[in-house]
C-alpha cells in the first residue's frame, strides 16, 4: 500500500476510486482457512451464495477454488456445504501455512 502524507489524500476519509475494495486484501485477517476438496464437491454453489466476501471462485457455473486474498475465514461456506458432502474444511491458518 502506498503510504501518502496527510497533504496528499482527500479529506474526510473520502475514497475517490470506485470499487477499490478489491485492492484491500482482507485475507490477512483470517484465523481459519477454508480448504476445498475438489473431489468431494458436487458444485451445488451453496458456499458461493453464502460467502459474505465474494471469495468463492466460479468458472462456467462451477466452483473452482477460493480467493484467499479476500477470504476472511468466517467459515460460513464450510457450514453451508451439505453435511453429506463436506467438501470444505476449516483449518487453523498457522497449520495450513505449515502444511504448505
Amino acid at each position, binding site marked *: 500500500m502506498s*503510504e501518502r502524507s*496527510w497533504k496528499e*489524500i482527500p479529506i474526510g*476519509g473520502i*475514497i475517490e476510486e470506485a470499487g477499490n475494495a478489491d485492492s484491500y486484501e482482507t485475507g490477512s485477517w483470517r484465523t481459519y482457512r477454508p480448504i476445498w476438496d475438489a473431489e468431494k464437491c458436487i458444485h451445488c454453489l451453496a458456499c458461493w451464495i453464502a460467502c459474505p466476501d465474494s471469495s468463492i471462485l466460479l468458472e462456467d457455473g462451477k466452483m473452482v477454488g477460493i480467493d484467499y486474498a479476500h477470504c476472511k475465514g468466517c467459515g460460513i461456506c464450510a457450514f453451508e456445504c451439505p453435511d453429506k458432502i463436506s467438501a470444505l474444511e476449516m483449518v487453523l491458518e498457522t497449520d495450513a501455512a505449515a502444511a504448505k
Partner: protein
Amino acid sequence: MARRLTLTGNDAAAEAMRQIDPDVVTCFPITPQTELMHKFADFVADGEVKAEMVLVESEHSAMSAAVGAASAGARVMTATSANGLALMWEIVYIAASNRLPIVMPVVNRALSGPINIHCDHSDTMGCRDTGWIQLYSENAQEVYDNVLQAIRIAENPDVLLPVMVTFDGFIISHTVEVLDALEDKEASDWVGEYKAMYTLLDTEKPATFGPLDLQDYYFEHKRQQIEGMSNATEVIKSVGKAYEKLSGRAYGMTERYMTDDADYVVVALGSTCGTAKVVVDEMRAEGKRVGLLKIRSFRPFPHAEIVAGLASAKAIGVLDRSVSFGAPGGPVHKEILAALSGTGHQTSIVNYLYGLGGRDISLDHIRSVFEELETVAGKTIAPNEVRFIGLRG
C-alpha cells in the same frame, strides 16, 4: 437597506434560516430551541422557503439525517439544545470528521441533571473537542449575523467543518430584541450557492463516504481536521470583514470592549457580555480602567487575540458558565491560562463560576468581580482557586 425587526433570539435564527433557505433542515424539538424550528416550520408551511424539512424521531436521527443529506451535497441545517445535543453526540463527531459543513444553532441549556431547562454552557462546552467550530452570540442581532456568517465559514474550501452558533437559552432565545436584518436578496447573494466537493449522487465521479479508516490513514485524516480548524481562524476574520462591509456590523474572533488601556479585564462569552458592557461603561464613567474581552469564537480558540486583548491587564477575571469537574477551573479559564502561558505576561487570573442552570448574573455581580480584581492585582492566584458568583454560601 437594513430591515429593522423585533424578534426573539430563536426567531432571529429562524429569520436567518429563511433567508439562507438551506436544501435540507432536519429537526427534533427540545426546549428552549423548539420555537426556532416552529418558526422555520411556519416558513416551510407557508411556502416561503423551498427547504426539505425532515422531521425525525430523535436528535440522534436529526444529526444522522443531516450527515446523510450533507454527504449527498446538500446545504444542511439543524438546531438543538442540551440533552438533544447529547443524544446527537456520536454523529456530531462524524459530521466534523467527514468534513460536512452543517450549520447548527445550539440554544444553550444546562445539561441535566437534576433536570433544568435554563441557560448554562455545559452543553456546548462539553463538545468543544468534537471538531465543530463554535461561535457564541451576545444577543439576537449576533445570533442572526452569526448564522449567516457560519454558512460562509463552514463551506469555505480551506475549512469544510460544521459550525455551531450558540446563544443563551431563554435569556436570548425567548427575549424580544430589536435587530437589523439584511434584505432577502442581499442575504441570498451573501450565502451564494453551495457546491459540495463530493456528492453521493454524482455518478460521474463516484466516491466512498465514511469508510473504515484504520491505523494506516486515520491519523492523517485527524491531521487534516486540525488544519481545517486552524485555517478557520483566518476565514472567520475575513468573513467577518466582508460581512461588515455588507451590514456595517464588525465581527472578529473576539470583541475588545475598552480593553486597550484596561487594568482590570473580565473575559466572558454569550449574553453576560451585554451585562458586563453596562458595568464597564458605568465604571469607566467613574474613572476606573476596566474592560471586557468577549470571546466570539471558542473553537478555534483565538490565542493571538486573547494575548493582545489582555496585554495591559494587571488582573483578569474569567467567567465560566460551566464546570469542568475535577479540573482546576472552568473550560474558558483553562484556555486563557494556556493562551497566556509562555508569553511572559505577568498577571493575576481569577476564575469565576456563575449562572449554572440559569442562575441570574446581575450588574452588581460583575461590578463586584471588578472590585475584587483591584484587590488581587500582583498576587499569585492558584488555578484551582475558583470563586462562585451568586451561590448561597
